[in-house]
């Protein structure tokens, strides 16, 4: 069975400035991959390439064995939740209607209801999306992303601007989708503690790939975490919510 993600020698530049250089890694079915790196490290660029939004690159990005540059069909197997969905706040669309948008092969109301119950948003079904809180909206966008039963879920800093209770619920949902539904997840976050808690594997980027391997290996290496974290003493850093600092030299454990 082809791997959900295979990135080989990926390089991207904007106006001559490199955003990603020679990045290679692969993700196996059922992995929960956390992608970390400082602001401007190329995390969003990497996602844009994986989602077919950016095709101005060299190298190859294969999604379920197919080159995303040549074929859009793998997109049907992907659910995507961006950092922030940009839409008109007064857009007249209900939660149910937003989730229906995710069903490309025809609307099945039972499936929409099922997903809303799973994500605890069934009581919001007839509310306008613009009336909801950030956390509620993010749950709606997850529901839209998974309603089609994707095999791969991609989330780009999905908890930015979300309150703590919503965040905890959100993490529980992701864990359930990965563990119980077998969905491969690739997500990015600045919160190292949460990446540690949630992810099975880690990719550390700062234009180039600096680490790819098991999350355990990454987080058991105090020096690595210390270099990744701006705090001088990681033992005093309880939540690792500080911005991720410059990453260490390259170390690819998976290859």
């Amino acid at each position, binding site marked *: 069975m082809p791997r959900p993600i295979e990135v080989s020698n990926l390089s991207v530049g904007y106006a001559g400035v490199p955003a990603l250089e020679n990045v290679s890694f692969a993700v196996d079915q059922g992995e929960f991959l956390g992608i970390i790196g400082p602001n401007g490290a190329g995390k969003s660029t990497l996602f844009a390439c994986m989602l077919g939004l950016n095709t101005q690159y060299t190298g190859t990005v294969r999604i379920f064995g197919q080159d995303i540059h040549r074929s859009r069909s793998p997109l049907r197997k992907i659910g995507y939740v961006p950092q922030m969905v940009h*839409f008109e706040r007064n857009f007249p669309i209900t939660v149910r209607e937003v989730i229906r948008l995710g069903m490309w092969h025809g609307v099945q109301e039972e499936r929409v209801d099922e997903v809303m119950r799973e994500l605890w948003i069934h009581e919001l079904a007839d509310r306008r999306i613009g009336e909801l809180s950030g956390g509620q909206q993010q749950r709606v966008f997850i529901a839209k992303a998974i309603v089609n039963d994707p095999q791969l879920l991609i989330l780009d800093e999905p908890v930015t601007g979300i309150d703590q209770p919503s965040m905890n619920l959100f993490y529980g949902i992701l864990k359930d989708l990965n563990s119980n539904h077998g969905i491969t997840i690739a997500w990015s976050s600045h919160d190292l503690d949460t990446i540690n808690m949630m992810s099975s594997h880690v990719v550390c980027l700062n234009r180039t790939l600096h680490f790819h391997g098991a999350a355990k290996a990454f987080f058991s290496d105090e020096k690595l975490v210390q270099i990744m974290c701006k705090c001088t003493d990681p033992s005093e850093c309880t939540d690792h919510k500080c911005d991720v600092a410059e990453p260490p030299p390259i170390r690819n454990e998976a290859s």
Partner: protein
Amino acid sequence: MVFEVLEYDFMQRALLSGTTIAVLCSVVGMFLVLRRYSLFGDAIAHSSFGGVALGLFMGIYPLWMAYVVSIISAVLITRIREKFDVSGDAAIAVMLSSGIAVALVIIGLAGGFSIDIFSFLFGSILLVSAHDTILVLAMTGSILLVILALFRQILYSTFDEKQAKVSGIHVERINYLVVFMAGLTVVTAIQLVGVLLISALFVIPNVTAMMLGRGFQSTIIISIVISISSVIAGIMLSYSLNIAPAGSIVLLSICMLGASMAAKSTGLFARR
């Protein structure tokens, strides 16, 4: 009196064309308003006026030429925005003034026309022929069928382009399709309210409906009801008071917008 008026052929044609155009403008206008293209209809309408003048000058049925010019203008506005990094309102302003300028030059060169070209400026719904009515019905049916067939893709691209792209939708193609349909709709609707008031049909019923509706489907239904009501009442009022139908239609829809704003501010239509 109402039944008496309905016995006239011209009134039957006016009401049939008017209500059909009302439905079309509500549906297409909803997508334009939500894409922040509210003045797009205005720009296309002004361009198509140049097409009307060109058609008359060349001896071609003016509305056919208006259709061609409006579609070219619609695509041009979109291309200018995409390729030259010009803001949407600036591109619209350029196209809006170009159409009128072209029309004025052609009218000057022709030394005037035997038919009343200004009926295209202010609409002439009471004068629509059976041929025009069939054209309106055919055009409306075709556009609505396309929208129905591609409803999810159009709505998704309108709601969030980026996510629509990720879901495999060819967003650029859908965007061109929407402006293409808007171009066709504008010319179809010119007969009802004319070039100068066309954007009112696109915008006012939808803005009103957005205050009252919750979801997309309910909002579009409310918009259609408001649009049809103002068209029917406007045509009847214009006949009985001998006033311009375009003015009465638009003023009635503005009254409904005012009433909705008042009702909303008093909490009468507060969404639960």
